[in-house]
């Protein structure tokens, strides 16, 4: 698989580079390396944000994107090197853990701004930046909905792998639900697989059997919600289309603030020669800064839940309500 992925990656890369054109002053070229396919929520959320930024033409720039999908493990280095050596790109965005590879390369290409996103990255400084999105605030809000609209007082979360970025969502979801319904119980299941929607569906079925009537779907499997007639909360994107009538609300991962932040740095670097100097921490934008959001609750969400979600969202945006970012491993109640 790894070999084939490497061959496929190289072929795709060669195809994209063969049509490469030199960067013009009013162009900004981005290369992106994705751990999965562009149809997956984590990656699609980034692409949707990029489309928004592209349409805004920040600094009058035309933004162009080339990308390679399904790159992981040691293949990252090869793709990263090929993009870097092409000389075409102002920014290379790896949508996964890649700081080790970036650290090896970054000094050879000081004019490229490297971004590594998600968990598993560390500070490398210089032109190697870390970006991340924390969805604890939006998870809290969808938890408020779940706490108010559950009829069984049992809610659930189905996740792939536990990690800081997932645990904080589950813990905030529980906190949100408990803030409006202290008696609510949360079921937590991790399936420990990236590519097993069938198991994710069975995990949800198990929670439904245990009484859960609202599940926060971190496993991207919504068919089961439709089949079993329960509500499943979407993650990263508006997931309504996955099971219309069974997805009442979704969290939204929004990369626009990151993209604008990095584009500003690139423009400054180009115009003034300002050297990149990445902070030694993750660059994160909270809900108030536009880094996360939630979808508008579906019409059938209760008025009480709609009002409570709107109230708490306003409180988060005003700074009145601080949601704790708790990355500890969550377990079932």
């Amino acid at each position, binding site marked *: 698989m790894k070999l084939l992925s490497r061959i496929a990656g190289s072929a795709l890369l060669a195809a994209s580079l063969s049509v490469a054109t030199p960067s013009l002053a009013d162009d900004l070229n981005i290369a992106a390396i994705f751990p999965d396919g562009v149809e997956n929520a984590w990656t*699609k959320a980034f692409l949707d944000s990029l489309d928004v930024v592209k349409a805004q033409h920040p600094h009058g720039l035309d933004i162009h994107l080339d990308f390679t999908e399904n790159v992981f493990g040691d293949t990252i280095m090869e793709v990263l090197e090929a993009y870097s050596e092409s000389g075409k790109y102002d920014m290379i965005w790896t949508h996964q853990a890649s700081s080790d590879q970036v650290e090896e390369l970054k000094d050879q290409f000081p004019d490229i701004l490297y971004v590594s996103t998600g968990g598993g990255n560390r500070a490398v400084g210089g032109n190697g930046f870390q970006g991340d999105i924390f969805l604890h605030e939006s998870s809290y809000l969808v938890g408020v909905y779940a706490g108010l609209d559950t009829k069984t007082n049992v809610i659930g979360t189905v996740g792939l792998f536990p990690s800081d970025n997932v645990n904080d969502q589950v813990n905030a979801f529980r906190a949100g639900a408990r803030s409006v319904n202290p008696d609510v119980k949360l079921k937590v299941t991790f399936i420990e697989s990236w590519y097993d929607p069938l198991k994710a569906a*069975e995990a949800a079925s198990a929670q439904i059997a*245990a009484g859960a009537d609202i599940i926060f779907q971190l496993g991207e499997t919504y068919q089961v919600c439709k089949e079993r007639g329960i509500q499943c909360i979407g993650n990263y994107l508006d997931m309504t289309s996955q099971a219309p009538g069974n997805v009442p609300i979704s969290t939204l991962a929004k990369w626009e603030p990151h993209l604008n932040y990095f584009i500003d740095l690139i423009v400054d670097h180009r115009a003034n020669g300002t050297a990149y100097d990445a902070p030694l921490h993750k660059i994160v934008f909270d809900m108030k800064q536009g880094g996360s959001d939630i979808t508008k609750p579906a019409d059938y969400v209760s008025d009480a839940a709609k009002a409570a979600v709107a109230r708490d969202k306003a409180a988060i945006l005003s700074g009145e309500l601080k949601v704790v970012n708790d990355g500890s491993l969550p377990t079932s109640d």
Partner: protein
Amino acid sequence: MNELFTETILIAVLAATVRIATPLIFAALGELITERAGILNLGVEGTMLMAAFAGFAGSFATGSTWAGLLAAMLAGAMMAFLMVFMAATLKVEQVVTGLALNLLAAGMSLYLFKVYFETQSMPMTEVMPFMPIPYLADIPWLGPIMFQQKGLTYLAFLMVPAVWFFLYRTKWGLEIRVLGENPKVIDTKGMSVTLRQYGAVIMGGVLVGLGGAFVTIGSVVRFVPDITAGRGWLALVIVIAGNWRPSGILLAALVFAFLDALQLQIQGVGVDLPYQIFLALPYVMAVVLMVLKSRGGRSEQPGRLGIPYFRGER
């Protein structure tokens, strides 16, 4: 923990066991027929994966899950054809061929997915609905566990006696079993060894294809790379643990599926043990069964499994 032992939860665990066992039964029965014909096909995972993709794409293209099912069976047959062509006609080393098929499927399914679904949206298709069987579905306990499932699940369980009947009560089944033990007997009777191996392996591939179809159009609306998630490898273990007999295969598949269903439920109950222990249970059991198998009882492993047949050999 007591929550586990309520009627609702026990029924849910057993019903999930039946669902989780479905693709394993199809794949293991398919591999059984293949191995009984003396061909060791380690490409079960890849065959399931290609069939899972073909089922998804076929269903997406036509809007019919039946067409998807047909596409999955065809994909299973084509992968099996590749295997048997390499093994029976070209006499290529079977272990290597099987592993190569897995690599081919991993790359090919991803490539075709990208070519066919050239979009950044999330392609989805219809899935087969649950088909409760009138009257039987209302039986306490047994109804919700066995008779409120999908059509493919009923078919998988029906295939167990059907494959047994085929292998042990028909002339074709006997010939296939002879291929795995002493193909020279077939040859000296003037019958084609190769032709029968093609038939057995392709029939096995169709069954494996049905297992792949269950993973996509039988269960979920999406396709993701490597969606079979090791079920093909587990099917190979199930054939060994089941001692190359349909009844043993059914039992082994149900044991693995039960452990998987149980661990999913245990996580939700909140037992004070690392949940990874429960996640590993089916695979720990696979190793235990293999060890037990090697130590006790008469092995039904075909004597010529994996050994190519050359006319005139002694």
